[in-house]
């Protein structure tokens, strides 16, 4: 299996290079640069021009790209033009937030998906199943950014159960128990609203998989041998039905990245998604390229994880 992983990583390498080149070129083609927002009669245009030269913003793209790659190899992602700090430091600050948001969302996704999927698969075409499938269709149809806004309005502002912005209460000292608690409290609403929408895929998969499995011959055999209904479902059906869910896990991560861009923006949650959006708007190229690169790596790793999990849970699949 190690061979496989190494081979996969080797294959992904050119993919990442291509991705970074594409992203870099597209970022270059956007009008304006990191300093063009400074259209202020109180600031001398000559001073801005001077900074532009100092920052190398006037260089042609291939030189900029070469500089960027050279830095990258040394583990230096460059300097953010907007935040005036090393990109690595900036990403470090944001990545932590996004990581926890992702973890919380995944937990919620599966917490919601597995019971719902099992119920609607096991008791398919009952009243409960109709309700659950109804929910999944609504989930499919609802755009995340609208849903998140509605959730924010109802639970954040009307009921005031959750904080409405930020990742932590202002003034908390990192490391204390209150700090962690406040972090979790700030996580709940964004991750829940993201999970409620992204989970519908998994519910549907699980449902159809269970319905499919329960008509298989080996289930009839199990029943014939006198296994109790709960044993049939928990041991025989569920285990087999979880396979595609495991395979789906990697894509879940990719989907999360797309989702966090919206959710972080709406909840004012300073993570990678928000960083991505604001660096695109602010033409902060070094950050845009680094973030996209990280996103790309995350998706590729996600796919890899899916494969590995699949080989672990399904002995029929052997990676060579």
């Amino acid at each position, binding site marked *: 299996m190690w061979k496989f992983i190494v081979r996969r990583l080797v294959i992904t390498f050119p993919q990442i290079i291509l991705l970074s080149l594409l992203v870099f070129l597209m970022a270059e083609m*956007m*009008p*304006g640069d990191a*300093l*063009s*927002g*400074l*259209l*202020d*009669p*109180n*600031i*001398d*245009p*000559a*001073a*801005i021009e*001077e*900074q532009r030269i*100092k920052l190398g913003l006037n260089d042609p793209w291939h030189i900029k790209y070469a500089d960027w790659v050279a830095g990258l190899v040394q583990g230096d992602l460059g300097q953010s033009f*907007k*935040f*005036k*700090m*090393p990109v690595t430091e900036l990403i470090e*600050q*944001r990545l932590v937030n996004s990581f926890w948001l992702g973890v919380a969302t995944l937990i919620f996704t599966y917490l919601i998906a597995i019971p719902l999927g099992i119920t609607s698969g096991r008791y*398919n*075409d009952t009243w409960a*199943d*109709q309700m659950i*499938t*109804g929910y999944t*269709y*609504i989930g499919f*149809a609802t755009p995340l950014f609208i849903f998140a*806004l509605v959730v*924010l309005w109802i639970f*954040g*502002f009307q009921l*005031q159960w959750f904080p*409405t*912005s*930020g*990742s*932590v209460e*202002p*003034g*908390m*000292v990192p490391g204390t128990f209150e700090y962690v608690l406040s972090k979790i409290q700030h996580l709940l609403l964004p991750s829940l609203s993201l999970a409620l929408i992204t989970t519908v895929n998994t519910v549907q998969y699980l449902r159809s998989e269970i319905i499919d499995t329960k008509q298989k011959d080996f289930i009839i055999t199990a029943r014939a041998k006198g296994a109790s209904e709960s044993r049939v479902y928990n041991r025989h059906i569920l285990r087999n039905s979880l396979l595609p869910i495991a395979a789906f896990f990697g894509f879940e991560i990719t989907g999360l990245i797309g989702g966090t861009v919206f959710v972080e*923006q*709406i*909840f*004012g949650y*300073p993570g990678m998604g*928000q960083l991505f*959006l*604001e660096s695109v708007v*602010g*033409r902060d190229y070094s950050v845009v390229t680094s973030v996209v690169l990280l996103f790309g790596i995350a998706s590729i790793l996600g796919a890899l994880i899916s494969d590995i999990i699949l080989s672990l849970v399904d002995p029929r699949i052997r990676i060579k």
Partner: protein
Amino acid sequence: MKKISFSKALFALMLILLLALAACSGGSDDEGSDDSGSDDTGTEEGTDEGSDEGAEDEGGDEEPAEEDDGLYSVEDFAPSKTNEGEAIEGGTLNFGLVSSSAFEGTLNWNFYAGAPDAEILAWFDESLLGNDEKYRYNNDGAATYEISDDNRTYTFTIKDNVNWHDGEPVTAEDWAYSYEVIGHPEYTGVRYGSDFTNIEGMEAYHNGEADSISGIEIVDEKTLKITFIKATPSLLTGSIWPYAMPKHVFQDIPVAEMQESAAVRENPIGMGPFKVETITPGESVTYVKNEDYWQGEPKLDGVTLKVINPNTVVQALETGEVDMVDSFPTDQYPDNAEMSNVEFLGMTDLYYAYIGFKLGSWDAEAGEVATDDSMKMSDVNLRRAMWYAVDNNAVAENFYNGLRWAADTLIAPSHPEFRDESIEAPTYDPEEAKKILDEAGYEDTDGDGMRENPEGEELVINYAAMEGGDVAEPLANYYMQAWEAVGLNVQLLDGRLQEFNAFYDRVGRTGEDDPAVDIYQGAWGVGFDVDPRGLYGRDAMFNFSRYSSEENDQLLEDGVSEEAFDVEYRQQVYSDWQQLMVDEVPVFPTLYSAVLAPVNNRVQNYSIAVDWNAPHEISVTAEEPVVAE
């Protein structure tokens, strides 16, 4: 069994599709009314179209300003908070920083670039010089000044009780240090400009030819003397850099690394009424009071500042999550005018919107504008007719509920001292516009209803407008219809609105003007200093219209000459200049604007007036903000 489930699913799908279709048809209805507006010609439809767009608040009635139909005026607002009830001891103020992105965290006046950082800075560090309501430095700040007889040398004395948050006194050396850092060859911010090169010896220092700035002299611990090359009244309205920098904190940090240092980002100090307690990067800052503040101990215990998404400003105010915000979207005011827990403060914004005409290009080699008499818009009669053709009063009422109003000269009412109210600028008169065009030879020769230019060639004017907000598109459409009504064929550049960066790239931010742009619609937030050279001077990159003339040069120079220290003389110069701009119409102002600031009812002694400098006096009447209803 399976079949039933499928048909139910199908039914659900159909339901959703039905909903989606219903939503779509709603949208296309709106578009329909837009289209019908642009089809008929005549002078009425422009304003009708406008009131359609503003119909939410006005119910579409046709009564103009007299009727109370949701119109407001900046005069209805006071800049200072009315105080009700008894203030409590201490308390914490919650301040909302409205921004869709995280703040950058460059927390030093010498290095900051974004407006959000400036808001954060203002709570803990302040200008050494106070200013009066005419934006002039006065002696009420942390330092006083005296001017030499030749107006070139300024002697500043920092008051004795002005100290940094760490207890060290603010010294003349700290102030001089600001200049040394900004002028340093390795300085990484954007402040070094003409204000600094006007100091004697600054350029030599900047180029590395001198170790110190000859024009800056530290007389004693608290006294600083700065000598400028050219004496101008602008020095007193912002051209002197009034911020000191704690030298004892920064002296060991190389200038090139200051911007990313902990002294700027993690534990910045200042001399303002509050000290920074914690910073959560990008999202919030908490402050505690600075008991040693030079104006006296602040009444509040502290301030909590956090970033608020622009989409949720209103909710954050209603629920008392924040007491006030740094900027309130004026277009949301009509829907929230009745918000019970806040008082809206307001005043005239330092702002005007305008339509500009491209009259030349930028000569990068000479570093000045190259006015070209053969441009499409070079005929002043055409430009003046276009001014007469638009009804800015209707725009202000229908799009902005009166919170913007029609503009006449290029000096906004935020500068009443130099604004000449008596100048008669063109106002809406389509007949006059048609007359001017007829006389200037712009006539419809091929019978398509659109005027040709005097040579008989087809005249299509390309109009660059920026996207942004709900109003941008209907507004651009209104202007085009108004011009169409007088027979001018004005088309949106590329048939669409331009994104911010693309817009200014094409209009000429970098000097590479796109020749496809004939006219454009922009806006300026103006500085304290009335001097318009930065926007209309011959050597100003931001002079996007690329207009220049001898008379203009002369007036702009006179406005900052030594004689202009005499206010009456300067008023006359700028009055002449405003008249010149009305006569020559390189651009015409369209709207002035009000700025609104909602403040929670529990807050006292707060003001948005320009000469207000008493943040230590702010107090609250309750522990928690008042909640709406």
